[in-house]
């Protein structure tokens, strides 16, 4: 579903992403972990086409990631929620429905607004919403086209506990529906239970890429050790 080969992203002389390669099979849920400045967001933004890659190849569903065909395959939830100031919550969904050519979007839209407590705010303008509410719209907009592949960049930031719980539930439902998901997050426990695989980034390099049980075997002495222990072990300074 997603193949990244020798991806490099350079800012000036500094490599933010340092020649990384990985692959996501259809239906796989992968957690992308790493300390601040590791290159998680940059990697994700290069994949979805928000940033230019310096070099490398990215294929989504067999198509180049910048092609129109590839864009039909995926949705992206950014770390910073972007909404249009003068569009209401419902109009955001109508906008996405037109952009992705979704005909019967209204029922699904109402359902999503219900899940994220946006029903009573459906006619509120984007500019009048708090950061958490904007993040909820962002998630609703990404889920509306029902894509095969989803990229979540720090999706829990700014959400209230109920929305966090619902997002975790949605992850689970998406996984059961066979969707492919790449989640970048600081909240390790949010991916621990659902991720088939964990990728750990540090200074633009992938320093760990395996299933949770394999990572435990490799890096933690104690079999009861958590993902947090693996993360701290791998990302500690030499």
């Amino acid at each position, binding site marked *: 579903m997603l193949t990244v080969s020798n991806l490099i992203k350079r800012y000036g002389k500094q490599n933010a992403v340092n020649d990384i390669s990985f692959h996501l099979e259809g239906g796989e849920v992968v957690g992308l972990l790493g300390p601040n400045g590791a290159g998680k967001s940059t990697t994700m933004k290069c994949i979805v086409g928000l940033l230019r890659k310096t070099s490398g190849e990215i294929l989504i569903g067999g198509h180049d990631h910048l092609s129109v065909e590839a864009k039909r395959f995926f949705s992206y939830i950014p770390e910073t929620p972007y909404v249009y100031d003068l569009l209401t919550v419902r109009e955001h969904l109508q*906008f996405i429905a037109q952009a992705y050519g979704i005909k019967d979007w209204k029922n699904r839209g109402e359902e999503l607004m219900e899940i994220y407590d946006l029903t009573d705010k459906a006619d509120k303008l984007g500019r009048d919403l708090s950061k958490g509410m904007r993040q909820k719209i962002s998630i609703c907009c990404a889920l509306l086209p029902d894509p095969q592949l989803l990229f979540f960049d720090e999706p829990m930031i700014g959400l209230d506990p109920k929305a966090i719980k619902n997002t975790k539930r949605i992850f689970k439902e998406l996984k059961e529906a066979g969707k492919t998901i790449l989640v970048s997050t600081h909240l390790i426990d949010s991916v621990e239970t659902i991720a088939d695989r964990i990728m750990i980034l540090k200074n633009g390099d992938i320093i760990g890429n395996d299933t949770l049980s394999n990572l435990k075997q490799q890096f933690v002495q104690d079999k009861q050790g958590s993902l947090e222990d693996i993360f701290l072990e791998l990302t500690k300074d030499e």
Partner: protein
Amino acid sequence: MLLRKDLLILKNNIWLILKNPLRLLPYGGMIAYFFFIYTMRVRRGAEEGRTGIENIDVEGLPQVDFGLQNVIGGITLLALAFLIFQLFRATKKNVSFFKMADVNLLFTAPVKPENILIYYMGRSIIPSLGGSIIFIIYGASQFADKIEFSFINIAFLVLGFALFFFLTSPIRFLVYTLHTKYGVMQYIQTGVIILAVLLGLAILIPGLMAEKFWQGMFAWIASPWFDLFPIVGWSRAMMSYIFNQNLITALAFFGLYLLAYYVILRLVLDTAGYYYEDVLEATKSNEEQVEKVRGKKETPESSMSLNTKKKLALPDFGVGAKALYWRNYVHASRQDFHPLFGLWSVILAALGIAFAILSNFDWFSHKVLNGYLLMLVGINFFAGIGRGSVGDLKKPYFFLIPASWSSKLWNVIKLDLVQLGLISWVLIIPSVLIAGLDWKLILFYPLCVFLVYIVGLTINMIPKVAFEEGWDQKLIKPLMIGGIFLFGIIPSLVVSVLIFVWTRQFVWMLFAFTIGQTFIAGVLVHVLLDVISRLELKEI
């Protein structure tokens, strides 16, 4: 303590410059340019003999020099408009001399609020002085052959300019403190409006009394007694020293400024009280404004929206990139009273038509209408530049929507083009009919407006898209824009001016300019469509 803090900041800034002296390159270039112009002008002045404004014997002239009167009146009017605008703003929004760091660190410290206020109010002259020195250096280089620049001349020029800008902030602060203590905002607001109306009458009455409106409109505000008008007149009187060399008068007006500042300071200290809460909101919004300017914060798209409460039920416009046009349509429906022809369009078109009517009755010559049309062309160039920095291009949806880049770009600017077409025709058709202008303007003017908008848009976008962030972009961008101006816009301007000189017809000048812009826009659009797939989202 505050002085020490500012000195530390100054030291750190100097240290930053020393660490990266390349930052000084643009400033060095500016100084070199000023110096070059200055020496050129001085040499020319010496060759031709000084024939400056000071040599004009106004008393000896048989008639009023309308040209000089209109120059003085025009500048005075600009200063008055600025003052009224500042006073009016003071009734809407508080002024703040502080930064959020002051609010968090200083306001909670055991320091007397008055002392902080006195220091910051006094210190606010530094940016005014700095700004006026730069302006005077620029102005001096332009007028070096007309005016003698002795120390005292420069001192009065700088002081006149700086004090004008400096005193507006304390006055605005005073307005707010007076309001918080006595609740007099409504009275002040009414006072400002009355003042604006009186000043408007001071232009209208002598204009109507004169043989021709333009000959009389500035007769009052350009006259010497208007020097007594606070701030604007005082500064004008101080700066007039370079022409009349009357030291006593200039010093007297400087004294008036000092007295006014002292009175304002005393009043502020008496009325401000425990002002921390009052300045909090203004400080925060100032800081946000600075961050927006530096690009660290997103500029809201909804500022100045007039119709946000409007309920809409727009049908879909289509699939893919058409969603962007739909989005812009919804946005424009809430921004203004009509998405295609809003309040600004009505005002701009009405002004043009008014000029056409006035020129028909010989109040103004056709030149004013032509100048207005050219001004709108210029505004649309900047509107194009602005379009490349706001709206959809700052949102990830533009990148994520599954559609071709060219169709996305087309749908982002489509509404602008429809609006431009409408306002251009609503403005030009009646103007041509009323003022008896050449009918060909009905074709050329809207076309010219479209093209300059496209040129503005592409000029801003191409360097952003085509070059990597960093020094290469910083260096190549001005080079590229300079190149477009040097080899594209300026030659087409020169040709159009030559054609105007030759034909004495505004329509042919516009035609020549339009042809030039067609070539430039054609090349730039071609380049933009070639490179647009390299566009990146600039995260805030």
